[in-house]
């Protein structure tokens, strides 16, 4: 009996061992399969980065290197290139200092107020971001230039609008919101008002607190903002083209664009690629030290606590409100109103009064294929808005561990490469097959805006506590369910945000499109730029209104909806419940 029982249990044990071994083998096979799939996916992402970033850069370098050291030196030391390099560095550096200083000051003044008052001021500062750079430059020229609206109404023109002062002013208006948003994010994530209160109660003055507590805590976002503004200003083509060309003020992107017209000879083309490559090197030289500095600074996270120090209105509050309103009116509202009036006025040189109003400019603007170009731009922007977040998710999801750094750098590098250099590199790399096609424009958009698909998704993944999916699995959820219920909800919001951002940027893109378009592939921004070149002021204004209005309308609607939903579902302050291995805190899930 006992022997029989023992035999039975031995058989059971053997069977169990067999099952365990089989399970182990299955698990091993599955793990190997997953590893292979992951390796293939990583290879795909790395391959795509190589195709979109490395190929254009290497193509540029290959042509530029053909000139030899003497040729490169000659191309860079020629009077035009030398002046353009100097202009680019001076403009980008000035804009960076102005935009970061003003953005930081405004963020500190606005972001520690109660929510409702904050929203309107935030919109006033960040508003210009939804206006395409090119449109803003053109609108400023119509509002404040010679024979512009202010000149006609009050005999006032902005001195130096056509030239470096005007370029710096408009690029600062564009860079300021970038700095403002970066610092705002930094204030929310890093600078704890409690530390400032502690310093104040220990007897430190307002300036001492700012200098010794607030700004040091904001070092990381400030550096990031400076990098972003510098890259944007150095690579800007549209604003220097609109405001610099009449004054004979060239920057590197406008020089590359204008030199393309003379680049039929290989010597001229080589010279152009040298300047384009120098622009890339300039941006990377500025970014490199900032990046190293950023890497050395440890992110200092703070526990969640309410941002606002006080809800009482002070005199300073009123001053800030007046400053922001005046700024928003001068920088965006008056130029955009002028743009609408110009679009409605019958001909150049006529007063924008109702007697001269017409809708003919819209008809004229759309007569030469503008409608098709609008659809083409919308299609391209939509494709980029779908592809960039998906590729961003692929990078964020796959490239962990040792791949994370290089892959993220590759994606960021594509954004840092100025559009004119990237476009010329893409023509050399892919023109043989895709020259003048919609595909080549789409390729450039995805390369340039991939980072905007990557960053929000990466941030959302980083905010996910690492144990959460494991916890879901341990609670009995299947892998797919765990991903669907735990990972996807926060990612969905991030991917939608990324898609919206990429859509706007691609819809407004001009620098690369104007170099890459061919027969029947003009984008809407290119049509507007051509109209402006042809002196069709009314038609240019009409098309610019059409380009800007949808994004402004959607932005306003989104803001209103967010505001309404946040008012109707106001929650009590969230309480931190645990920390992850990076020392970041997460709210309790409800």
């Amino acid at each position, binding site marked *: 009996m006992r022997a029989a029982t023992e035999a039975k249990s031995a058989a059971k044990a053997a069977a169990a061992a067999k099952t365990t071994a089989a399970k182990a083998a299955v698990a091993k096979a*599955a793990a190997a399969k*997953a590893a292979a*799939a992951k390796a293939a*996916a990583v290879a*795909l992402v790395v391959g795509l980065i190589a195709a979109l970033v490395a190929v254009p850069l290497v193509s540029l370098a290959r042509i530029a290197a053909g000139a030899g050291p003497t040729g490169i030196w000659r191309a860079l030391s020629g009077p*035009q290139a030398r002046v353009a390099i100097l202009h680019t560095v001076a403009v980008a550096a000035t804009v960076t200092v102005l935009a970061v200083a003003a953005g930081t000051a405004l963020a500190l003044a606005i972001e520690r107020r109660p929510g409702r008052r904050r929203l309107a001021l935030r919109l006033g500062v960040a508003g210009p971001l939804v206006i395409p750079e090119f449109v803003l430059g053109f609108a400023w020229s119509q509002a404040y*230039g*010679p*024979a512009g609206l202010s000149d006609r109404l009050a005999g006032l023109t902005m001195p130096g609008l056509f030239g470096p002062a005007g370029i710096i002013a408009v690029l600062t208006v564009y860079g300021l919101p970038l700095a403002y948003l970066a610092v705002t994010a930094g204030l929310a994530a890093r600078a704890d008002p409690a530390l400032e209160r502690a310093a104040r109660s220990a007897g430190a003055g307002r300036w001492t607190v700012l200098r010794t507590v607030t700004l040091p805590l904001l070092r990381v976002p400030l550096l990031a903002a400076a990098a972003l503004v510098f890259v944007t200003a150095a690579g800007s083509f549209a604003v220097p083209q609109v405001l610099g*060309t*009449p004054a*004979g003020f*060239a920057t590197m992107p*406008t*020089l590359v664009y*204008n030199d*393309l*017209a*003379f*680049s*039929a000879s290989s010597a001229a083309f080589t010279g152009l690629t040298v300047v384009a490559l120098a622009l890339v090197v300039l941006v990377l030289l500025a970014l490199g030290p900032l990046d190293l500095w950023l890497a050395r600074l440890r992110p200092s996270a703070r526990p969640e606590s309410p941002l606002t120090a006080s809800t009482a209105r002070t005199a300073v509050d009123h001053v800030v409100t007046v400053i922001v309103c005046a700024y928003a009116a001068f920088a965006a509202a008056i130029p955009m109103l002028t743009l609408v009036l110009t679009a409605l006025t*019958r*001909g*150049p*040189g*006529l007063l924008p009064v109702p007697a001269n109003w017409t809708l003919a400019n819209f008809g004229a603007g759309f*007569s030469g294929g503008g409608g098709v170009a609008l659809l083409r731009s919308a*299609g391209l922007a939509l*494709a980029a808005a*779908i*592809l960039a977040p*998906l*590729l961003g998710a*692929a990078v964020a*999801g*796959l490239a962990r561990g040792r791949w994370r750094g290089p892959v993220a750098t590759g994606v960021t590098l594509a954004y840092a490469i100025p559009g004119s250099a990237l476009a010329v590199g893409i*023509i*050399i790399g892919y*023109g*043989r*097959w895709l*020259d*003048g*096609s*919609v*595909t*080549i424009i789409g390729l450039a958009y995805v390369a340039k805006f991939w980072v905007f698909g990557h960053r929000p998704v990466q941030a959302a993944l980083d905010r996910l506590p690492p144990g959460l999916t494991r916890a879901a699995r341990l609670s009995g959820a299947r*892998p*797919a369910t765990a*991903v669907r219920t735990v990972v996807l909800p926060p990612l969905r919001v991030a991917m939608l945000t990324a898609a919206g951002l990429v859509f706007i940027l691609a819809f407004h893109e001009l620098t690369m499109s104007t*170099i890459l378009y*061919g*027969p*029947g*592939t003009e984008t809407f921004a290119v049509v507007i730029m*051509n109209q402006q*070149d*042809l*002196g*069709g002021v009314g038609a240019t204004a009409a098309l610019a209104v059409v380009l800007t209005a949808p994004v402004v309308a959607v932005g306003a609607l989104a803001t209103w909806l967010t505001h309404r939903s946040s008012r109707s579902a106001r929650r009590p302050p969230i309480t931190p419940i645990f920390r992850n291995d990076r020392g970041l805190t997460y709210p309790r899930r409800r």
Partner: protein
Amino acid sequence: MRLHRTLTAPFLLVAALAAVTACGSSTGPADSAGSTSPELTLYTSVTQNTVTAVLNGFDKLHPGTTIHVFRATTGQLNARIAADQHSGGLRADVIWGTDPLSMESYAQQGLFQRWPLPNLTGVPPQDKTTYFWGTRELYLVIVAHKGLTPMPATWADLASPAYKGKVALPDPAAAGSAFAALGYFATAPGFGMNFYDKLKANGAVQVSTIPEVVTDVAQGRYQLGITLDSEVRAAIAEGSPVVLDWPADGAISLYSPIAETTAAKGAAGSAAQTLLRYVLSVPGQTAIGKTGWQPVLPGIAGPARPAGSKEVYPAWTTLFGRQTQILQQYQSIFGA
């Protein structure tokens, strides 16, 4: 497995979208031989309404031919042609330019076939070369803001102190006709590049294109400018406060040439020649005349000219081969 499944969908979508975008792209006809409906690609810097009028007329006579058009300023046309050359070769079958100097540059790069229709009649000998023939006559004149007194009488007056800081010039690197004006002044007796030095010293400003000069003068940014007669007439018709000032020493006359490229082969080549023949036919020339330009064929009505108005001609043959040199000289004075 999970990873695999999660990623399959996005990558399939990426591939599908890439395919869709590629299908929707238009790279122009690669080779239309064997196709029932011929296709051809036209690169042009001619005004949009003129291109539209001529191609509409052509379409009525040759409804089966599809024409892909790239229309831009001469500067952008140069950039597109250069981009083509650096990525596999020119994609245009026909180039219809604004000025002989830019067209001669293309010819010197070996982009044009010898003129394929030598038996056509009517085009004056001074308006054609071995590679391209003129299609319309353009006249560079002075545009002035309404009410300006005194008005300049001659080209040389633009450099007089009375107009200091009031003159707008079109950019020869962007606009073909401005290039022709540069060619004229560079070689004409009494002017030379010295004329541009004087204009610069007198505060003249370079803007981009010919129409932009008219717009800027209409808006009052500048009081005077060098532009084309047809653009001034169009602005006056719109009610803009500008007047046409035909210089007493003569408007600078140039012809707007057309040519078949070496890329035009097979059916595209035949279609290119059909288009060339149409542009130089009575219906094509009439369409050009109706859009405000002087047709090149004698006897076809163009816009009315002031009585007793004169014209002068750049020395084309002397200028051919010197395009880069004079442009560089100009840019050393007015360059950005």
